[in-house]
């Protein structure tokens, strides 16, 4: 879909990007990452010709991007930047319609598209359509920025540290919403960031750059498990095992839990819970109430005494959360397993500490093969 062939960009004696070659398949999220000054933003801006390469060729859909006018090329590549750059004199709707207007869309089509996109990025069209950028929070503005980039349904999205300027809480929310939108739309995305966690979370492929040179171009799993050199190894950081957990979703490792119905008598409980010490207690419709510790169930004791009631939102995870979220919940609560519930608090399964451990150590055998620290 996008192919960079031996791209070099020089500024005087400085080489910002040094014979870089990349190939990004359709529908893939490719994250360009590296320390500041590594040439990642320059690379991104060469794809939509905001910067021209000194040498080399870039192909989008097997067409050399130099073969069509820069403006026409850019209208087919959605563009999102860290500072967003919404037009302050246009409403949210006006901003979203910039590219459709350049392309000469019908008015009714633009009106429909605005509502569709605002819903997609999680903003209520009636409340936001006619607002001006200065009335938006940072997170809302960036959602509008993403909606604007998607307006004319370009096959490719170029995103330059899109979530870099929002606070950590909003950044996580924007990241998971981006992941959801991407699962739905399957765009080809080039995403620049300096945040390795963001890269591991969102990328299908990670391109790690340093001083204009490509260090490694591979899946997040490969980058974590087989760093190509000392730089990548150090850049990824010592907590590779934890980072790997970001890639695994709860639903991939959850197992079905032992459950009993609320109000069941003690004998049933002991039979039902059987082999396991803990059992989840649920309503007849499946909603989680809490759990019982079977060790606390003696003959004649009151079931209520053994039941620990919980607020499901605080003591469970969702199927599409990452294993790192699950682990952090477990550590926070001090449990060795955690319930998995859906949006309505219905119990779906559980994730155990052992499962998290398995995912963490998987592929760790290579680490002993790395050259020792400082030997590179």
């Amino acid at each position, binding site marked *: 879909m996008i192919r960079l062939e031996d791209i070099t960009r020089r500024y005087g004696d400085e080489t910002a990007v040094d014979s870089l070659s990349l190939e990004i398949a359709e529908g893939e999220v490719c994250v360009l990452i590296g320390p500041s000054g590594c040439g990642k933003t320059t690379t991104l801006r060469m794809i*939509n010709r*905001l910067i021209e390469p000194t040498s080399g060729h870039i192909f989008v859909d097997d067409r050399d991007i130099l073969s069509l006018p*820069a*403006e*026409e*090329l*850019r*209208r*087919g590549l959605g*563009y999102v*930047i860290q*500072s*967003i*750059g*919404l*037009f*302050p*004199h*246009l*409403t949210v709707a006006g901003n979203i319609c*910039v*590219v459709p207007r*350049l392309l000469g869309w019908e008015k009714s089509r633009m009106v429909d598209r605005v509502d569709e996109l605002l819903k997609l990025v999680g903003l209520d069209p009636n409340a936001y359509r006619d607002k*001006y*950028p*200065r009335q938006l929070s940072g997170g809302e503005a960036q959602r509008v*920025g993403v909606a*604007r*980039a998607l307006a004319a349904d370009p096959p490719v999205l*170029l995103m330059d540290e899109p979530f870099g300027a929002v606070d950590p809480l909003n950044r996580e929310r924007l990241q998971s919403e981006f992941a959801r939108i991407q699962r739905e739309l399957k765009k080809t995305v080039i995403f620049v960031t300096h945040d390795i966690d963001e890269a591991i979370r969102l990328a299908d492929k990670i391109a790690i750059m340093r001083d204009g040179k490509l260090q490694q171009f591979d899946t997040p799993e490969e980058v974590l498990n087989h760093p190509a050199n000392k730089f990548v190894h150090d850049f990824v950081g010592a907590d590779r095992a934890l980072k790997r957990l970001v890639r695994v979703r709860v639903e991939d490792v959850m197992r079905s839990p032992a459950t009993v119905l609320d109000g069941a008598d003690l004998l049933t409980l002991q039979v039902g819970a059987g082999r396991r010490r803990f059992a989840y207690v649920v309503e007849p419709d499946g909603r989680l109430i809490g759990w019982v510790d079977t060790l606390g169930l003696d003959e004649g004791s009151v079931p209520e005494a053994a039941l620990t009631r919980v607020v499901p939102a605080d003591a469970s995870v969702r199927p599409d959360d990452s294993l790192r979220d699950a682990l952090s919940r477990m550590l926070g609560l001090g449990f060795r397993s955690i319930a998995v519930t859906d949006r309505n608090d219905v119990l779906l399964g559980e994730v155990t500490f052992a499962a998290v451990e398995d995912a963490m150590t998987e592929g760790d055998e290579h680490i002993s093969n790395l050259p020792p620290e400082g030997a590179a």
Partner: protein
Amino acid sequence: MGAFVALAGVTVLPFVELRPNRLVPGNAYSVAAAGPWAYLLWLLVAVGFLSAVAPTARARAASSTASGYGLVIALAWGLGAASTALLVDQTAVARVSLGSGVWVLLAGTAILGFSGGEERRRKLLRWAGPLVLVAGAVIAAFVWGGLDRISLAREFSVRASSFWSLLGGHLAMSGAGLGFGLLLGVPLGLWATRNRHVRAVTLGVTGVIQTVPSLALLGLLIAPLAALGVAVPLLRDLGVRGIGAAPGLIALTLYALLPIVRNTYVGLAEVEPAVIDAGRGMGMSSWQLLWRVEFPLALPLIVEGVRTAAVLLIGITTLTVFAGARNLGILIFEGLGQFAPDLILLGALPVIALAVIADVALSALGRAFTPEGVRA
């Protein structure tokens, strides 16, 4: 405050001056010369004092407004009555001139009228109604109240035909200078944002021009323009001579340049770089970016520059008389030459009025051109 000033105007200072002819000084008369109108003036000043002590904000605003507008009307009729009374038994060349008390009273009136509330100024309709009423009453004083007998009106009636052509000449001269200033200044300001060297030169040169005294600039232009007119007969036929409209027009255009160039430059340069980057990245051409984004955002500041230039030019236009132009400046300088104070006023008052009207009108235009999304 306004009431105190008005009080000083009607008590301490002379109201009118009766002079044997238009050139020699005469005797001062107090407000009592206005007969019964004097009592109304006193009464209205008293109403003005109410505005300081009235219990509610509404009452304060109402009394200061009523006294402000009322004083203008009573003053017009009072002056008419005073000149009618004083001119009885006088020769045909005797004159009644405005005393210093009238000017002080007018200043107090203005303070009273405007302190009635900033709010009212924004609502044009509520403001315009009383204004039409006051203007009507003043015109009626000319027709039926004897106001046409005061010296200023007599100077006007002597020169009625040339007055209007001089006023027209003034408007044409200032307008043309402003027009050329716009035609040159906006492109220069735009060019300055695109080129560092142009910026240094244009902002520097227009700044230096502003420091040259207007009379000196006119003098400097006469010789080269005269030479040019002699050398190129075609230009001379077009009006390029050392004396006449040409040197004045060139001087006015040069003076208009600084505020227009500077505000155009600042307005365009202040557009956020992220906004430009986003626009280019979405595929807007330089022209589209300029027309749809940069100019709309810079327009309020450009209009502000035009306003500054307009007020400046309306004043400086009077000086172009020295290079042979014909406008209201002629009345002022003839009046100075003859020591005829009322003739000076006949020239100066319309110039002040024009400047105020230009100021108010262009301020309103600037507000109208401010996009809603960037309004404070």
